[in-house]
């Protein structure tokens, strides 16, 4: 199909519409996803095209939203539930972690739940502590959930389509800081669990998602100009994680830097380093390094929030240190 330029925000309803056209049993539900087109305008046009039976505005009842998705999925629908800010997963954590994720296992496979949960995560410019979290990390210890973290309009589009047609529960995190990023869209599904090598390089492997992927690419350009050749890899999916691509890169670079928004504790970056160290110890010529946010909630003030986010400078600095190890 023809490529077209689209921003991240618009790629979302485009992906949903593409799948909804193919399968009449796909529904979308959430707060103000219908008539209003979503608070982030990420479901714009869907209500008009698919009507109030397939695009459902709900009360502010996140447990009811996820439960409706679970039950209807068990009975033949393929629901997409939007939770708006990912932080709101807190009020429906039970429905996601104890119900959605475990349903298939507890029933020994009698029910599969093709549920997509959409969440807007990350720092978005002054939303403060309860509206800025990288909530993808909350679910890493909960088996039974796929976790998707797209960084470009094309990945957003293609991965969301794959999430919707996947037979497993999939959490899709849409980063608030990326909504206005533009890029080409190839109008195709992108398989879950396949990393993307964003820039090729030989001295250092940087693994990063979402906003940090973009900062890492910026850093890589600076580093390249200083003679340090950096391979930036975007895993795109955290569960399942494409360890093979990281390992392959490491076998060339011998150095690993993981850059992540959000605190280090219980994070995917921490998991990646532990897995890679344990399994591919001999590939390393230097200690692995995790750049993350400090262990604090997200502050409001611009200068504090900026300092909370790992900066391009910080990445450049750490990369330089690592490669001179």
């Amino acid at each position, binding site marked *: 199909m023809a490529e077209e330029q689209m921003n991240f925000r618009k790629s979302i309803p485009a992906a949903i519409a593409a799948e909804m056209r193919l399968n009449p*049993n796909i529904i979308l539900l959430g707060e103000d996803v219908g008539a209003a087109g979503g608070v982030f305008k990420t479901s714009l046009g869907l209500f008009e095209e698919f009507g109030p039976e397939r695009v459902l505005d709900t009360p502010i009842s996140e447990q*009811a939203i996820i439960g409706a998705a*679970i039950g209807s999925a068990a*009975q033949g629908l393929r629901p997409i539930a939007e939770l708006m800010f990912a932080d709101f997963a807190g009020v429906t954590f039970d429905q996601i972690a104890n119900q959605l994720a475990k349903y298939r296992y507890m*029933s020994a496979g*009698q029910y599969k739940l093709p549920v997509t949960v959409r969440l807007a995560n990350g720092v978005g410019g002054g939303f403060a502590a309860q509206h800025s979290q990288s909530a993808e990390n909350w679910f890493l210890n909960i088996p*039974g959930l796929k976790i998707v973290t797209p960084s470009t309009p094309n990945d957003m589009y293609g991965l969301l389509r794959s999430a919707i047609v996947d037979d497993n529960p999939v959490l899709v995190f849409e980063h608030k800081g990326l909504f206005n990023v533009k890029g080409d869209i190839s109008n195709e599904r992108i398989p879950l669990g396949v990393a993307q090598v964003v820039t090729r390089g030989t001295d250092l492997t940087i693994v990063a998602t979402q906003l940090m992927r973009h900062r890492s690419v910026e850093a890589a350009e600076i580093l390249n100009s200083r003679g340090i050749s950096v391979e930036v890899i975007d895993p795109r999916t955290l569960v399942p994680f494409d360890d093979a691509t990281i390992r392959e890169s490491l076998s060339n670079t011998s150095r690993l830097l993981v850059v992540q928004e959000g605190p280090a504790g219980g994070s995917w970056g921490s998991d990646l380093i532990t897995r890679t160290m344990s399994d591919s110890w001999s590939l390393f010529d230097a200690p692995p390094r995790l750049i993350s946010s400090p262990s604090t909630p997200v502050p409001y003030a611009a200068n504090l929030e900026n300092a909370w986010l790992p900066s391009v400078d910080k990445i450049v600095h750490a990369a330089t240190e690592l490669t001179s190890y």
Partner: protein
Amino acid sequence: MNITHPYVAWESREVPTLKQQLPNDFENVLKKMYEIRFFEDEVQDLYSAGLVRGSTHLYQGQEAVSVGAISALRAEDTMTCTYRSHGATIAKGAQIDACFAELLGRAGGLCNGKGGSMHFTDASIGALGSNAIVGGHLPIANGAALAAKFLGTGKVSVCFFGDGATNIGAFHESLNLASLWKLPVIFVVENNQYGEYSPVKSTTSGEKIVDRALGYAMYGVQVDGNDVVSMSAIVADAADRARRGDGPTLIEAVTYRHSGHSRADLAAYRPEGELDEWMKRDPILLLENAIKEFNPDGAAIIERIKENARTEVNEAKNRAVSWPEPDLSELYTDVMD
């Protein structure tokens, strides 16, 4: 205090009772109730013998609630329930040996032994799942109803839960959404007087649980949960309403659990004599009295049904006990594709 509540049918409608009539299919109804009773008696023994692990929550005394409710529903209707779900799952039609096997953690159990006592699930009979999180299944019951409405299957979603569950957030969100979207769902509170060791009044504000229906402009009915005819009639009404597109109903079934909350709980917190009073209203006893009253051969019929049930349950247990443990590979399956 008498609350005038336009949504509560309790005061305004004659509810049929066992004093007036037998259930249509009273033999099957009694049989199911005995199957559940004997099943739970056996579970208690298996638990004491160390063969059932974790926790078990028995259903003796509440049989009329789910048996009555399900007798008014269609086979294809869906059901969700709590950890105290052996009764409802058998009432819905699960194989008894598979139920035993699940409790015993055996291959051939409803969930291959992976779920256990609190997670009885049987997709083949529309038993969508039992939930060990209080209130966790109410939102899910809505989902099943939403699918029924969307697909036009005419299915009704019945949801059983306890009095204690009416105080958790998920209850509220679910009732509001169901009412708003006129979902074909029937919420059945089994008010067995206690949540764990706490009497319902000590944890639940309001005159009656069913009063909470008003806040959602939902039909609400309080019913004698030990009277299988009343239960059945009220649920039949609710199912009609649901299938007509008139939305959900909240049914408060007043009942009693004969045993403690779970496992070794001896229920010392119950006032002296309370159990005795309720034993006089044992749902099986009430049904048997009615059968004897309305049927000259009542006593003989009862005896036959009871013995059949006893034998079947016993044989089912013996089969299940002989089944093997699940294969170790089961540990890793059914997580994700």
